Each structure stands twice: as structure tokens, then as C-alpha cells.
């Protein structure tokens, strides 16, 4: 290693890999990964989510999984926690997951069409 | 009986080792460590060879060998039983454990059984204080021991 720039490049790259261990960020994304969730395709959703977050180098977001959120018919679903606020997204695809990152996490605009409220109304 | 290690092949390995380390400053302890890895212990013949090879007086070599507890002048048993007698183990009753093993093997700390099967030592802290009291038998580790467990463990060997 001959320059500090080289060291810095390695550091940046390696940091992405270990930031998982720094404890909870300000924003938590929780993906429902019970049997029903997995069967409905939660795994690709979660991986797309993580991939997009890493690509955009978002520092304060952690992605965790949880068991059954309770609305199996709406899986795959995930919840975004920001402080006291909770947004629940349902019937997701990997593409929608990427949109949530871009719109909600980066721009702060909730993806209205995909939230649980909308679907419950439709069904009602 | 312990395996015979004073073979021509092992002495050849020693010669290579000496040749390799001859120019290194202060290499004596490393050479002795590696020689002990080859032979299992450091008999006078081996020390003499190192003395000639490294051009260090025999008195100095013997002095170093007897100074450090790691070096053995006698061959050791097939199974090395080390009972940790660090402070943490001691206050959690390591002494009765050592006594029980002595009773089972019939040897005291620092001795080897006549059939060359077991050697017993009371060793210094191995730093696994969370598992105190602890013993090791070659590579196997037994932690959080009670006197009652000793018999069962010893019978495995």
C-alpha cells in the first residue's frame, strides 16, 4: 500500500460489509419471514431491499427479519420503523422493494399504493 | 514404552534446522523449541549437536534448557495431562482435581507413569478462566470439572 487513497478505498468497501454489526440504525426495515412469507417470496424481496440499500450507501438503515406479521394473505410484507412511526407494506415484489428504498427511505415519500391500509380497504 | 525418536532421520532434520538458523541472532530458544518438536524431548546428544552447530558452549545450552519449564530432559508420556493451577482455577477447587488424577494414575505432578502412557503436570493459567477448574489431556479440554467426573474422563484413555 503506497498511498492513503488506497487505504481509504479498502476502508469504504469493507465498511459496507461490517456495518450490520454496529447495532440498530435510525430506520429499521423488518421483513416478515415466517413460512408463509417465505412461500410467498419474501426472500427475494429482502435481498433486493438489502442490495438497493447497499447500492445507495444508506448508513442508518438496518434490515432484519421477523416471524409472521399476521396477515398471511398479504405476504410478502415488510414494515418500516422510523422512531414511533410504522409503515406496513404488503404484497411486495423485488422491484417494489427497490422502489420503497428509493422513494420512502431516500426521499421520505411513503409509497401510498402499497401500504396495508389501501389493500384492507379494497378487500372490505 | 515411548516411541524411540533418536533416529538418523530426525538427526538429519536437526542438521537442516541448525543450518537454517545458524546466522539468526539469538536463535537458541527457537532452535531448542523446534528440536523438541522433532525429538519430543532434549537429551544430551541433541544438546551437544546444537552446541557444535550454533557454536554456543554446552554449559550455556544446558543452562537455557533447565531454566525454562517448557524444555524436557526426559521423554514424556503419550498423554499429557495438564491441570490448570492458575488462581481462578485454584479458588474453584483445582487442588482436589489434581489429587484425584494423582490417585487414578499413581503419579505425582511432574512425573510420568512407568508404562509411558501418562504424564501429569500442574500448569500455569491457560487463560480459560470461565471454564475453571479445567484440565487438558493432549488436545482435549475438560472444563467446569468436578472430582466425580475425573474417573469417567480418565477411563477414556
Amino acid at each position: 500500500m503506497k498511498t492513503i487513497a488506497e487505504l481509504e478505498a479498502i476502508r469504504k468497501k469493507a465498511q459496507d460489509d461490517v456495518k450490520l454489526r454496529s447495532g440498530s440504525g435510525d430506520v429499521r426495515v423488518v421483513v416478515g419471514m415466517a413460512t408463509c412469507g417465505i412461500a410467498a417470496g419474501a426472500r427475494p424481496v429482502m435481498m433486493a431491499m438489502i442490495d438497493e440499500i447497499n447500492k445507495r450507501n444508506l448508513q442508518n438503515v438496518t434490515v432484519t427479519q421477523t416471524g409472521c406479521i399476521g396477515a398471511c394473505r398479504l405476504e410478502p410484507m415488510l414494515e418500516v420503523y422510523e422512531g414511533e412511526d410504522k409503515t406496513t407494506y404488503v404484497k411486495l415484489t423485488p422491484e417494489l422493494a427497490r422502489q420503497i428504498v428509493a422513494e420512502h427511505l431516500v426521499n421520505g415519500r411513503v409509497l401510498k399504493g402499497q401500504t396495508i391500509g389501501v389493500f384492507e380497504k379494497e378487500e372490505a | 514404552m515411548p516411541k524411540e525418536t533418536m533416529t538418523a532421520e530426525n538427526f538429519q532434520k536437526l542438521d537442516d534446522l541448525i543450518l537454517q538458523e545458524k546466522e539468526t541472532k539469538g536463535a537458541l530458544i527457537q532452535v531448542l523449541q523446534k528440536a523438541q518438536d522433532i525429538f519430543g524431548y532434549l537429551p544430551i546428544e541433541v544438546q551437544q549437536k546444537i552446541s557444535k552447530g550454533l557454536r554456543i558452549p554446552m554449559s550455556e545450552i544446558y543452562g537455557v534448557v533447565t531454566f525454562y519449564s517448557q524444555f524436557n530432559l526426559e521423554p514424556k508420556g503419550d498423554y499429557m495431562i495438564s491441570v490448570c493451577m492458575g488462581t481462578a482455577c485454584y479458588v474453584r477447587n483445582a487442588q482436589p482435581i489434581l489429587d484425584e488424577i494423582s490417585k487414578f494414575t499413581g503419579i505425582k505432578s511432574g512425573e510420568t507413569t512407568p508404562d509411558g502412557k501418562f504424564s501429569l503436570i500442574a500448569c500455569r493459567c491457560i487463560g480459560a478462566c470461565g471454564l475453571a477448574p479445567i484440565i487438558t489431556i493432549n488436545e482435549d479440554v475438560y472444563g467446569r470439572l468436578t472430582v466425580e467426573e475425573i474417573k469417567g474422563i480418565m477411563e477414556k484413555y
Partner: protein
Amino acid sequence: MELYRSHVLVCGGTGCVSSDAFKIIDLFEKELEKHGLEKEVKVVQTGCFGLCEAGPIVIVYPEGSFYSQVKLDDVTRITEEHLMKGRIVQDLIYKEPGKKEASDSINNMGFYKKQQRVALRNCGVINPEILEEYIAYDGYAALAKVLTEMSPEEVVETVKASGLRGRGGGGFPTGLKWEFTSKAEGDIKYVACNADEGDPGAFMDRSVLEGDPHALVESMAIAGYAVGAEYGFVYVRAEYPIAVKRLQIAIDQARENGLLGEDIFGSGFNFDMEIREGAGAFVCGEETALIKSIEGGRGMPKVRPPFPAQKGIFDKPTLLNNVETFANIPQIILKGADWFAGIGTEKSKGTKVFALGGKINNTGLLEIPMGTTLRETIFEVGGGIPNGKAFKAVQTGGPSGGCIPDAHLDTPIDFDNLISLGSMMGSGGMIVMDEDNCMVDVARFFLDFTEEESCGKCTPCREGTKRMHELLDKITEGKGTQQDVDKLESLAKTIKSASLCGLGQTAPNPVLSTIKYFRNEYEAHVNDKKCPAGVCQALLQFLVIPEKCKKCGICAAKCPVDCISGVKGKEVYLIDQEECIKCGACLEACPFDAIKKG
């Protein structure tokens, strides 16, 4: 880049490895593969998490779930429940002593709350065998800063201003050592690291070597730049095979990546280093003895001056610091001397790592700011004494330290306070003793150690430790008199003032401190011929409690020397004290707790 949603950290410190940590790692990898999760979940082998009592330890991130005493059978459950379905396996989660609820995350545990990790900051966080992980946590940034922005004098000044004192025992100001070595005349100089951690019950240096070896490599290179040395030696205990292996990996990686070798960061500065393994001699932790041993000879101390800073390894000026001291350096460089000096007490800056062991709930390694009281350390971080027993003493500083009683537990820990209590910081061993430990026996135990480890060069230590040991044997065997206690005390004072090196000068501390604080126990041994804690065999008596005896005769049947008499069903049994060999078989055999020892 590889993408993982979860990291499984498995402790690879010696304590956990002794209880199957490597097998747990293998099994996790197999299980993950079986369930097709190997691309999503990464298994990382780290250094010591510190809470060895609970080992083997597995932590799952991002949740920070702390699984303790994990068995091979548990791996499948953690994989199938937690890693697949996100359900934390509650019954395997560590529960703190005295608490009903399991802690949901490592960040909320009492053991870690009061801690402040500087020297141990990466232990249990990174994989010590991967250079990139060290770099991710600002590794080698301090070396880069030093080589490109600072003059050697500025580095020495920074270390001086931080107030850092040697963590190996003596507490000598580190910055002054650096200054002396940098000013010493000499074409060749060396940097050496004392990793000959010989105090029984202390394992913080091993933990740094195993958990964060690059920190030492980086730090020694910084020291080399500051004092004008181009070569370093690390003297490691041969009993630490995992530490030696990881440090060697770190040195090789640093060399391959140009962090050791020639022209580091294009600055023109060259530095390289090697490991020298010790061969088992406690006295080699003393600096002049250690230097002798690095040179390949008998590790015997010599008179100072000349100090190593003038005449050290191969008679060249040598900077010698211990592992924990070095581990603080990169942080001091990056965060500044003021930051470090802001932690701790007036005369003892920064944090100190302690190895807590003995009769304590949370056995393990902890790093706390200087000035934390002994009571906080033992009862809050350490979780108190197990099995409802009463605290009796805490022994600090290994065989060189003393035993501190309950009355002084509110003392803030720093170098000077511990010395004024008749103990010392030492390398940071802290062994807790409860009511079942006999203080005379403990003093005897330490003398057994120092007598054996005395190198034999100077008479006060060689002969004195032997005589002290003999006197203590006599007292514990019930043959001692009041005069013996007095003789012991005066002998101890002579050895303390007349010995050549630190080993002899501190060897009497366990004796002096136990006489000072627990004189009543000594007096019970010599006057009443009793061991109040019931440890010293020769002074024990096994007695049948007549009111509790059910006349069953089980004790008499178990007695190997047939010294218990009585009539089954009719007469209370009686132990013949003349014949009794004090084996304790009757006590264990009695189903009604009708036999007591006292």
C-alpha cells in the same frame, strides 16, 4: 460485493475454543448450506467477547442477539428458527444473573453497559484473520496519519500528553519511555512488545492478540517511527498457540499489503517485525529478563540502569511496551491526546482491561474507565458472587498483588490507589474470593508460585520466597505459632526492599496484604488451630451433629479407615478424631446433612 443480510459472530478466543467454538462454526456453515442460506448469512470467527463464563458465545447481527453456552445441538435450532424465520430462540439467549428476562440485545446487557472499550474495541467485532475488517474499523488510519502528517517528535508528544501509563504492571508513563528511546544515541534501535502474560488469571493481552492482532502490528510500526526503530520483536508466551498463529497471519498480511516493509505509504519509513516465542518462565515478563530471553539466553533480570531505552536487545536502545499499552496507541493518535486524557482519574488516564475470575458470576474480560470503583466492577459489571455466598476479598495484580477486603471496595481503581491498599494494578487480573476461601491458603498458593518462578539470581527472592512458603505451610498445617506470623511479616518486608527485580519486590504482597486485612484468620490458624473457611485439611474436623443424625450408618460404611462408630438404628454415630484422615467421604455420603466440617 457479497451481500449478507445477517452476520453470525462466533467467539474464537481460547476460552470458547476450549468448548467447541470451531466445531460450532463448521456446523453453522453446514446448516446454512443445507438450507441454501450460505449466500445470505455470513459466519464470522471473531476474537474474545469477554464474557467467557457464558461461552461458547454466538452473536447474531443485526439484532445483536447474544446466545450463550451454545451446544452443537443448538446450532440447528438457531439456524432454522432465527436465521430462517427470524424468531429469536429465547431460551438460548443469555440471561444475566439475577434477572428474569433475557437481554434482547448485547447493547442492553449489564456486563457491557458500564464498559468502555478502547484496547478491546475490535475484540468480538471483527474477524481477526481478515485485514479488510480491521481497516473497516479505521485500522491503519493512525499509521497513515502519523507517517504523512506528523513528525516523530509530535507522535512522542501526543503519547506523552495522553497520560497513558504502562498497562503491564508498573504503570510507568508510556510517553516518557518513548521519549527516552527516541533521544537515545544509536544507529540501530528496536521496538519490542511484552506479550509474556504470565499472571495466572490474566488474559487480556492474549485476547488482543487473538481478537485484534493488527492493532499491535500498526501500533508497533507507529512506535518504530516515533523512536527511530526499523525492527520489532513480539515476545509471546508459548502457552498461547492461537494468539501466535493469528499474530503471524496479521504480520504476513501487513507485509503483503505494504503496511510492513519498505517505504510504507510512500513515506520512506521502513519497519518489519517478528515473533519470538517464550519457553515458560514467569520472570520473563520483567523487562530486562525478557530482553535476555529474546537474545536466546536464560531469562534473568539485571540491574537497571542502564535501562532498555539505552541498552536493550543486543545492547541497542529498545522501546518495550506491553500489548494492552500498544493497543491504546492508534486510538490516541486518531482521536487525540485530549480525548484519552478526558477518560479516567487525575493520575491514571484512559481505560483498563481486567480479567475477572474466581467466585464471580460474569467471569470474563472487561474494560472500564479508570476510577470505576471495585464495588461497581464486581457487583455491577461482574454480576456479584454466585450461590448467595458472601464476598470476602478481591485479589488484584496476580502473584504480585494483594487481597483487598470488603471495607475498601468503594475505592476508585487506579494505579496509585491500589498500591496504597497494599496491592497493585499488575496486568489486570482480578480474582474474587468468597467466604469459602481461606486467606492463609491463598497466600500460600501465591508463594508456591513465586518460589517456583524465582529465577534464583538474587538471594532475598531465591531464599526468601522459599522461607515464606515454609512458614505458610507450617501455619496451614496447624503447626504455626504467633511468632511465625511475626517472622513472616518481617521477612516479607525485607524481601520487598532488598530484591533485584519486580518479581521479588512484589512477591511478599499477597502475604503482607492478607496479614494486614485478615490477621484474624492467621490467628485462628496459629492460636485456635482452626481454619475458619474450612480449607486447610490438617485443621479440619468432621463432626456428627447428634440432633440431625438418623443413625442410618451410611457414613460408617463409607469411611475408608473405619473410624466412625455407632449402632445402626440405636446410637448416634461418632467420628474418632485421632483416626480420621479428613477425606470428607462421610460428609458427602450423609443424606441428612448431619455431618459438618469446622
